């Protein structure tokens, strides 16, 4: 039992992230990939072929798209792309791994030595070092639930996921706060989605996190102790990532007090996560569980990346979400939180930029507002993304132009957007044809205002006496008379002119 007082206690976390790449076919065979949206709901064991089932005589063939997606992520993380990398077998037996080995990259990963900047919740910029990002294949899935909801007494193997391309990204132990690990994970998810390498659906296991956690404690007597490293496996929600790290932060101190065990060879252990109890749980392992006996896979030839190929992939690299966010705030004057939402979907970000390019930077705030309010509401109701509404950048720009010229009332925006979805006509054409444009006939507006005042004596009197809240009733009356064809702003201005002087 250690009862020395602890002067400082510092958390140290490194992160491994598995990203399932959404290629159309698997890593080493052309059977459909369950991580691609076209095949994600395939019935169990239907995305299988002799290579996946490891039937004798089968041979793996690399997927070009998986290699290029990995290079793309590597470049976005500032990594060096290895000009020469190879494949190795990681040997172990498990029912979700028909071959008895996983094809991975051991000593020569495709990407290495990068960094990723995050903005913490406290507003600091932090650099997180990337050790490596290598490509491998996913395993099948083990379950215990039978169709219909009953539980099976054994384990059920579904090989649909076996052979899905998996990019494993490994960071340096640069984190000292659970919150920063979550921020990093969320930001990496935005990046990978933006690059189009994954849908990033956490519930489907598209991204899985494994933090390596320990503590560095400075004791009252001057000693510095490090607790043994704990790896928590397979976390597939940010809540679990945060919970597991926070739980280990407390648990490791308690354990050190009880056992005095410190970091060292053989002291690393593996924990799982109990999502209901919100605690980490020690996973029992056989002593030789980690004796993987890696060796080069004789069935696969090396990957050599020459200048031409590297430049071809680099040319596909878009301006990244973080840079776009900064530009939206600095150049366009957008609010930080609007910029964050705009870059969450590449299609939305591109629609926004194309719309701004059609008009001018000065309209960016209005465009963002239209996209993130009325368009987002409509997309939400249709269950799609804003960029999938069938409304083009020119049409968005057209709506903004009508608004800027006071030709389209707020109340008509939704109706016009509905017409624009799926139509190739311009915003002006549609608005004119459907009678959505504001009547600018001053004498007609004047008449409607007089009518409203006559019909609402009390409200008019209140406004004359300075109770401006009462004007709403009068505006409403005019809007009704006009059938919504006037702009509420001009109505209010017209009424004010008559009632105040």
């Amino acid at each position, binding site marked *: 039992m250690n009862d020395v007082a602890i002067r400082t206690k510092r958390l140290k976390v490194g992160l491994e992230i598995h990203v399932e790449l959404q290629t159309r076919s698997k890593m080493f065979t052309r059977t459909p990939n369950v991580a691609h949206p076209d095949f994600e709901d395939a019935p169990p064991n239907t995305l299988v072929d002799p290579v996946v089932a490891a039937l004798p005589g089968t041979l793996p*063939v690399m997927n070009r798209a998986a290699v290029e997606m990995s290079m793309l992520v590597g470049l976005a993380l500032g990594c060096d792309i290895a000009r020469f990398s190879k494949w190795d077998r990681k040997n172990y037996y498990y029912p979700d*791994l028909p071959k008895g080995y*996983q094809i991975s990259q051991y000593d020569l990963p495709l990407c290495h030595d990068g960094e990723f900047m995050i903005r913490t919740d406290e507003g600091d910029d932090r650099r997180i070092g990337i050790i490596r990002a290598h490509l491998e294949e996913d395993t099948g899935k083990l379950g215990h639930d039978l*169709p219909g909801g009953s539980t*099976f007494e054994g*384990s*059920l193997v579904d090989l649909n996921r076996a052979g899905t391309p998996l990019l494993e990204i490994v960071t340096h132990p640069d984190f000292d706060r659970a919150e920063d690990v979550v921020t990093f994970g969320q930001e990496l998810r935005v990046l990978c989605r933006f690059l189009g390498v994954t849908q990033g659906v956490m519930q489907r296991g598209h991204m899985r996190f494994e933090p390596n956690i320990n503590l560095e404690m400075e004791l009252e007597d001057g000693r510095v102790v490090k607790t043994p490293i704990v790896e928590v496996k*397979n976390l597939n929600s940010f809540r679990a990532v945060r919970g597991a790290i926070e739980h280990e932060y407390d648990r490791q101190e308690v354990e050190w007090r009880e056992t005095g065990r410190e970091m060292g060879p053989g002291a690393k252990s593996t924990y799982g996560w109990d999502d209901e109890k919100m605690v980490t749980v020690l996973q029992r392992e056989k002593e*030789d569980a980690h004796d993987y006996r890696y060796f080069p896979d004789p069935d696969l030839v090396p990957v050599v990346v020459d200048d031409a190929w590297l430049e071809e992939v680099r040319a596909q690299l878009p301006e990244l979400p973080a840079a776009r966010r900064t530009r939206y705030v600095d150049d366009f004057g957008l609010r930080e939180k609007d910029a964050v939402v705009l870059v969450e979907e590449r299609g939305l970000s591109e629609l926004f930029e194309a719309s701004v390019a059609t008009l001018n930077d000065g309209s960016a705030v209005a465009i963002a507002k239209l996209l993130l309010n009325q368009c987002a509401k409509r997309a939400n109701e249709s269950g799609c993304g804003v960029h999938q509404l069938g409304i083009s950048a020119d049409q968005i720009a057209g709506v903004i132009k009508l608004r800027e010229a006071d030709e389209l009332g707020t109340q008509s925006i939704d109706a016009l957007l509905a017409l624009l979805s799926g139509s190739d006509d311009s915003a002006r054409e549609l608005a004119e044809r459907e009678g959505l444009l504001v009547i600018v006939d001053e004498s007609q507006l004047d008449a409607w205002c007089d009518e409203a005042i006559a019909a609402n004596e009390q409200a008019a009197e209140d406004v004359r006496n300075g109770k401006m809240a009462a004007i709403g009733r009068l505006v409403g009356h005019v809007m009704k008379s006009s059938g919504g064809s006037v702009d509420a702003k001009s109505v209010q201005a017209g009424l004010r002119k008559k009632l105040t002087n």
Partner: protein
Amino acid sequence: MLSEEAVRKVARLSRLAIDESQIPRYADQLSSILQHIERIQELDVEGVEPMAHPLPLNNRLDDDVPNEGMPIEDLLKNAPSVRDDYISVPKVLGEGSS
């Protein structure tokens, strides 16, 4: 000479059930393989690039075009035990291996 304990370990890692009486024989056979490797290791390879693959090839890459895969019946007929459309195995604890 490879120890009998090392033979047992290799067998365990490979999930091979071997007869105790056979262990000295395997130890002998495996040792002769290792001796052969040791002889190769005597070669002076100073300045020679490590070889990742015996064939002078690289980048055998397929385009990402999916095919049909194989019928589930063909997969399941080779499984030792099947439950609904799954291969059934003795209960495994934990979520998976990777």
